[in-house]
């Protein structure tokens, strides 16, 4: 049986579900095909950081636009996904890292990102619970965190209400393009066809791109995440460090969520799991930042599968081989915040043929691997 529509989306992460919502709101007949359940991989199992600070400058216009959508998420998706503006405090643990924080102030200024340097004299006064290794910080007041488990399902639900057809347990096994239309077949033998295809399949987006003759150097990325039992609430800002080897935040109910390093995975299953030695290392790094979490019990750990590009920024924009194909994948471990805006941007690319957001840095052919 073949089902026809205007736009097919492959991949039900935050970006894909947001695209389904924005397209449906503009009256487009859209079908989203998700292999498992929406938000099962990178979008659903990440740290939950909603952060602009520290991003590659090329991502900042997207992050800024997304931040505006995050602020209205309750109206858009029926839930705020526990989005809380806590501020994001990026920490330096030595002179070199401090220099990095200072250097980023110029980037922030250029992109009108509010940022405040908390220097050596005040960092331990303002945040008396920080460990002695911390020498400085950079505070982004507009940033915060949200519950990643809620975002994609809520966006998918809103998309459904707007008329989108969200198909879960629909794994695409064959891709074809007949010159004007895409033909996708699932494991259940269903066939879907449309003149436009959005490749938003995370790590597996690499496979989709390859099917259309534009392979990219993508690798699985497995965040190694832990959470503690609830303890007294005292860590208000979302914490990161220069270099990113550890990050942690506390939610008002008391749990401390921390991450660092990478787990293991088999994307063909798909299956992923944290690594025990990496978990122990992340605990050691986290307790150096906030000594008061010593003794808190880690009750759970997890991982998921994201796609990482060699330059750590995603592929976004039109295909160079196939008309009607648009990519947005390979978010390299920091796509959660961007998801809502990516959906809006893809909708503009498809329906308006343009977007105000500069996408040059995200071209799929930047790796020089596209077949001639």
């Amino acid at each position, binding site marked *: 049986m073949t089902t026809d529509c205007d736009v097919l989306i492959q991949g039900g992460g935050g970006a894909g579900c947001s695209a389904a919502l924005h397209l449906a709101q503009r009256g487009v007949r859209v079908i989203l095909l998700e292999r498992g359940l929406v938000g099962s991989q990178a979008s659903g199992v990440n740290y939950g950081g909603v952060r602009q600070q520290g991003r590659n400058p090329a991502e900042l216009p997207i992050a800024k636009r997304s931040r505006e959508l995050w602020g209205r998420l309750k109206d858009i998706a029926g839930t705020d996904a526990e989005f809380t503006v806590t501020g994001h405090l990026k920490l330096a643990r030595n002179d070199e890292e401090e220099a990095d924080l200072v250097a980023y102030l110029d980037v922030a200024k250029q992109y009108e990102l509010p940022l405040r340097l908390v220097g050596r004299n005040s960092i331990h006064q303002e945040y008396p619970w920080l460990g002695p290794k911390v020498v400085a910080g950079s505070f982004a007041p507009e940033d915060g965190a949200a519950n990643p488990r809620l975002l994609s*399902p809520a966006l998918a639900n809103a998309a459904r209400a707007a008329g989108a057809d969200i198909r879960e347990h629909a794994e695409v096994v064959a891709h074809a393009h007949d010159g004007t239309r895409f033909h996708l077949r699932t494991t259940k033998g269903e066939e879907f066809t449309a003149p436009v295809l959005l490749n938003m399949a995370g790590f597996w987006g690499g496979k989709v791109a390859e099917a259309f003759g534009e392979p990219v150097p993508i690798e699985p990325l497995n965040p190694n995440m832990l959470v503690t039992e609830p303890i007294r609430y005292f860590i208000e800002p979302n914490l990161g460090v220069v270099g990113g080897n550890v990050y942690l935040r506390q939610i008002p109910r008391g749990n401390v969520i921390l991450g660092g390093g990478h787990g293991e995975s088999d994307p063909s299953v798909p299956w992923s799991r*944290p690594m025990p030695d990496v978990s122990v290392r992340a605990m050691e790094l986290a307790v150096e930042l906030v000594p008061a979490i010593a003794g*808190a019990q880690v009750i759970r750990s997890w991982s998921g599968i994201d796609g990482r590009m060699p330059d750590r920024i995603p592929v976004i924009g039109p295909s160079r081989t196939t008309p009607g194909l648009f990519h947005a994948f390979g978010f390299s471990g920091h796509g959660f915040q961007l998801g809502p805006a990516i959906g809006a941007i893809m909708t503009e690319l498809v329906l308006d043929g343009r977007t105000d957001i500069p996408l040059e840095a995200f071209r799929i052919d930047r790796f020089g691997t596209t077949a001639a």
Partner: protein
Amino acid sequence: MKVAVVGAGPAGVRAVERLVAAGLSPVWIDEAPDGGGRIYQRPPVGLARDARTLYGFEAKRATSVHDTLDALKPKVDWRPETLVWHIRPEARTLNTLSRGRQAEVAYDAAILCTGAMDRVIPVPGWTRPGVTTLGAAQIALKTQGCGIGRRVAFLGTGPLLWLVAYQYAKAGAEVVAVLDTTSFATKMRAAPGLMLGGMTFAKGLYYTAWLRRRGIRIAEGVTPIAIDGDDNGVTAIAWRDAAGREHRAECDAAGIGWGLKPEAQLADLARVPFRHDPVQANWVPVRDGAGRTPVAGIYLAGDGAGIGGAEVAEIAGARAALALLADAGHRIDPIETVTLDGRLAMQARFRAALERAFPFPAHLARGIADDTLLCRCEGLRAGELRAAARAEAATGPATEVNRAKSFTRVGMGRCQGRVCGAAAAEVLAAELGCDVVATGRLRGQPPVKPIPIPAPVSAP
């Protein structure tokens, strides 16, 4: 060959006994200070009492398990007070934590004898201080020589309900009521099968008769109403009898439990597949009759592989060790394996009858009131889980337990759903209008049990 055995209860002891007899010296890991498992858990030094007082009819078995354990310790790499919190079957490594120290244990083959825990159905007031599981009430008595209260009520179903009530009464506690949610008629229907259990069945009858003879209040086929209390703990227990009349008994503690469920988190992390056992109403790891799993190098024995009780655990432990040895090319006595297999088969028939006599009352779990606390770790009430299963939820309906966990945090806390998981699945299934099997199984995640964040290494 590097062999690891996890657990030093009846299954672990008999497994290690066979391995040592074959000339192996396994790494033997147990969470308790001195092994014995939950059933034969030993009191700490200074609280030692004679085996007859501690274990009653089981004294001979308990002594035998303990003696074997003690004799084996010098012949193996014995690691008590050690938690196995993760396993990587691909690398064949276990991660352990013992008194704050992390270690990695490499294995070629591992026998997991991880035991069982009580299955709980939340009733109003079940999280009050003074309410414990039946197993915990029994352990308090066995290892600490104290009861959970002076005037104790017991509520639930299964052989443990009657055994613990008997043990408490015998120890001098006032047992105010034994409330079995299974009706007398249900038990009688299973009686022919129970005869297979011989002594075990006879003991069960003995406990019940003993309690009746002492005039202890007994009710069968009850529906729990609540465990009442004040700031100091439990004050009373209330229930409805089979005819619908309400009753109440004053007490200062309550032990509750509805059978057992396997502690199979480690098997789960080892990537052993699970199946739903309709007789036990439990998810159990897949294994053959000898304890082999589909995962290379992983063997299972005892209640962690499916509830069978201590006697079965001893046989299964030995059988799993023989399977491991045979797979490793050791010559094993075929008569012994046939004998063990025969005993396991007979015990399995008895077990099935026992489960029919004390079935898991899914209807009670499905009927938990909206405002009753369901997941105590995350403070989630039954109504909140039901809301997440409905179409109008902002995230769309949660159609299986892991999705429900994702949306509502049910089973996401400290116990990882060990306590609330069985009841939560029933609540979800009822709301979705489907069979409980269709709602799936809560996936295990490391650590198996909580592990603490270490103190910072660098001094301030």
